[in-house]
């Protein structure tokens, strides 16, 4: 997140740019002006589509249905009354006598589209990834069908004409600026950050307390509103349109802009809209067959569409994030230009102290079956605040599965997990962090394309809006400091070394202000020095913050020197528990690790 004054700057520049372009276009007039109006309207729609697709990572084919709904809704309201009687004789009474000015009609139409979005969003937000995308496709077809079917209001598939041409260059520019500003603000808002974190890794997001149901719905409705704005402007620019205008051909063109530029940023929307507009303008001239260097080129129907298709392929092959990448223009320039340090200010590590008092965490005879295979078989463990419990065992003994159950990532087959008196197994995973349980993953799961600080901040904000942003920021800063990551806070998570990535995961877990911390092989991939430093940190976490730490690792020296108690699993069953010394000399443990023969030799 950028500090407010930088955000103001980042918003002011595109605003001025759009107005300057609009001023130039309006002096040029004629074809140039019309082209720029279409450009601004397209950019409005693309920015709106990006608000949803870019942050959530779910591609949508359905946004043009909101554009269409809003265009028709506003046009019915602004159509002159005599015209209405002539072209729409069967209009329902409440519409037949209604006449609104452009601005109120625009507002009503946008609200109407957002209401439809709210209803459809409740359904679509229940679906994941590609299924959600296909559902948006169904939405496009449904709305298209409804618009054609409702011919008393829309004139069916015939042209709807006589709409006052209210959209000039200044209206288009204003609408465009609204879309750019809203998109940019949403991206850097708390819901935006949550969505982006979940886009990168939904499982880690869940475990970091990041629930996204409401955020997705919010993004869907907001983006529908912006696209609807574009629809109203387009309808009142064209003056006449039919349902075809809001179907596949235009969806293809707008999606091309979104994808070619890069759908995750406002910058990408601008770059994409410019690129596709320029290419379209050039190819359209060639389409009709022109004379080039004395050679008559043949007429090629659909040259623009082929050109756009090829550009999409090229971008997908060479630069999947789109031409503009995943950072906003100002995010590339400002940190270097102004050398700002978002960690500036006092670091107060006491903010990480758990605020809730926690009872003992008890897992009672937990069992996990994977279709026949019993991965964990009636294992009971308990963990108190202020102790470090080691969980060891050979590969495949069920350590990670046990940890996944206690942290709510996997449902239990039988048994239960209690925190104090409260039964917590069965709760959705994003509720666990609120109960004071945080974890890391064996296969590192970071929000890869976000910065280190954003990784940690996204988790710290999991209590927002119940807790102010400033408090979350203080916790994120303290967690970064604790894990010695302050210098690397602005780097992208996927550029870090293995050991650093593991420390970011721990910082992210700490930022939740947990009572309990589960670490799944935190030292894997670290050298001895890094491991020693990590052990030092973990001891301090126990002693200074009073955390209860459950640690799974294969590094026995680490386990022995760090842990207060050790639990040993083998083939899904608990075979020993006690102090490190007791466990080390337990015959069952030696057998499990080294095989029976070795033990017999040892005993002999």
């Amino acid at each position, binding site marked *: 997140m950028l500090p407010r004054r930088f955000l103001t700057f980042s918003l002011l520049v595109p605003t001025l740019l759009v107005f300057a372009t609009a001023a130039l276009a309006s002096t040029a007039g004629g074809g140039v002006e019309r082209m720029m109006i279409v450009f601004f309207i397209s950019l409005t729609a693309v920015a709106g589509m990006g608000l949803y*697709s870019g942050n959530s*990572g*779910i*591609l949508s084919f359905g946004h043009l249905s909101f554009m269409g709904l809003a265009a028709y809704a506003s046009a019915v309201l602004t159509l002159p009354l005599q015209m209405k009687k002539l072209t729409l004789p069967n209009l329902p009474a409440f519409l037949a006598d209604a006449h609104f000015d452009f601005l109120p009609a625009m507002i009503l139409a946008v609200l109407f589209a957002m209401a439809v979005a709210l209803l459809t969003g409740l*359904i679509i937000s*229940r*679906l994941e*990834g*590609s*299924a959600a*995308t*296909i*559902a948006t*496709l*169904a939405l496009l*077809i*449904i*709305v298209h*069908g*409804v618009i*054609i*079917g409702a*011919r008393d209001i829309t004139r069916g598939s015939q042209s709807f004409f006589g709409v006052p041409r209210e959209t000039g260059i200044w209206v288009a520019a204003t609408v465009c600026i609204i879309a750019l500003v809203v998109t940019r603000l949403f991206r850097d808002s708390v819901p935006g950050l949550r969505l982006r974190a979940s886009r990168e890794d939904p*499982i880690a997001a869940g475990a970091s307390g990041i629930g996204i149901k409401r955020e997705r719905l919010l993004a869907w409705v907001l983006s529908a509103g912006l696209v609807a704005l574009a629809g109203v402007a387009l309808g009142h620019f064209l003056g006449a349109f039919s349902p075809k205008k809001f179907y596949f051909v235009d969806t*293809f063109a707008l*999606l091309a802009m979104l*994808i070619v530029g890069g759908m995750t940023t406002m910058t990408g929307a601008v770059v994409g809209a410019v690129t596709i507009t320029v290419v379209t303008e050039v190819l359209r001239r060639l389409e009709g067959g022109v004379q080039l260097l004395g050679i008559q080129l043949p007429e*090629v*129907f*659909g040259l623009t*569409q*082929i050109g*756009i*298709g*090829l550009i*999409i*392929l090229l971008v*997908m*092959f060479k630069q*999947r994030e789109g031409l503009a990448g995943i950072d906003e223009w100002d995010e590339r320039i400002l940190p270097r230009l102004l050398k700002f340090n978002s960690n500036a200010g006092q670091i107060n590590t006491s903010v990480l102290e758990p605020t809730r008092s926690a009872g003992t965490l008890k897992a009672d005879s937990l069992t996990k079956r*994977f279709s026949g295979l019993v991965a964990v078989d009636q294992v009971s463990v308990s963990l108190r605040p202020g102790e470090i419990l080691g969980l060891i065992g050979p590969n495949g003994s069920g350590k*990670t599965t046990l940890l*996944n159950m206690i942290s709510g*990532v*996997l449902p239990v087959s039988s048994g239960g997990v209690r925190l104090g008196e409260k039964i917590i197994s069965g709760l959705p995973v994003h509720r666990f962090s609120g109960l004071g349980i945080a974890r890391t*993953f064996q*296969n590192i799961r970071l929000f890869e394309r976000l910065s280190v600080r954003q990784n940690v901040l996204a988790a710290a904000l999991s209590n927002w809006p119940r807790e102010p942003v400033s408090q979350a920021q203080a916790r994120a800063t303290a967690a970064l400091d604790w894990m010695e990551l302050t210098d690397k806070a602005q780097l992208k998570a996927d550029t870090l070394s293995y050991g650093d990535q593991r420390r970011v995961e721990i910082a992210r877990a700490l930022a939740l202000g947990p009572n309990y911390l589960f670490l799944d092989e935190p030292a894997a991939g670290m050298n001895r020095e890094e491991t020693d430093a990590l052990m030092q940190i973990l001891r301090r976490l126990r002693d200074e913050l009073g955390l209860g730490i459950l640690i799974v690792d294969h590094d026995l020296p680490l386990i022995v020197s760090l842990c207060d108690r050790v639990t040993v699993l083998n083939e899904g069953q608990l075979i020993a528990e006690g102090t490190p010394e007791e466990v080390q000399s337990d015959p069952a443990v030696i057998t499990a690790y080294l095989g029976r023969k070795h033990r017999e030799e040892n005993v002999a």
Partner: protein
Amino acid sequence: MLDLILQQTINAVALGGTYALLALGLAIVFSIMGMINFAHGELMTISGYTLMYCGLAGVPFVISAPLAILAAAGAAVMMERVAFRPVRNASAATMLVTSFAVAAILQILFQNLIAKRSKPVMIPDVLSESIAFGDFLIGINKLLAIATTIAMLLFLNWFLKRTDVGIAMRAAAEDFPIAQLMGVQANAVIAGAFALSGMLAGVAAVLWVSQRASVDPLMGFVPVLKAFIAAILGGLGSLTGAVAGGFMLGFIEIYLTAFLPEHLLEFKEPIGLGIVVLMLLWRPNGLIPAAAIGSQKV
């Protein structure tokens, strides 16, 4: 009334079977690569044009039909090699967009190189005849569609369960990295999946064209849109789900056409999709969800 219901049920099975074959083709590729192939419809169109050209050249239908199926399978393998291999392992959105672009390019190529408008396809007369069963008539093309669908489903079941390639494909669908460690060749399995999926599109195209006797550049677009919806209705990536979703969609469409009051017929499409959406509300992961959902490695 009973006659009407029976008659419409046969129509529904015939149409649903075609959707099922298309959805199955989509599901095979999706289960292995996580990719939704938007250009699946263009494979159908290629098949349709093959039938058209064969008809013009006087090739008999019994030969031109297998040729058309082969053409779609070949085109699918080529499509993967040229356009989809560079984005393999990319995000689902990236692969989807790539195939979307391929579809758009192919549609324009058909329009420029073959014809902008619909072209007639010669179909044997016998296909447009009907057989009388007691009181009602069943079109031979409908019977052919039903019989072919059943035969294809049986073949696929055998292929995936009994042949080495089929088993490798199922392993890859379950866990591709592990399957590769076990010696399954990624390129071979993916090429195989596309060949199979193209073949299914080809069969669906032959059935589709034999009932309409014409082909146009956008021929595959609408049926494949339906197949997408059938695939999520059934459960994305689930093969049995795809078949169930295909038949379900066929039934919804045919019954709505037959029994919807006249003034609502215009809304047939939105109502049908609306019903699908309601079913998805009831089962968000589809009628028969893919096994992989939920057992994702953490």
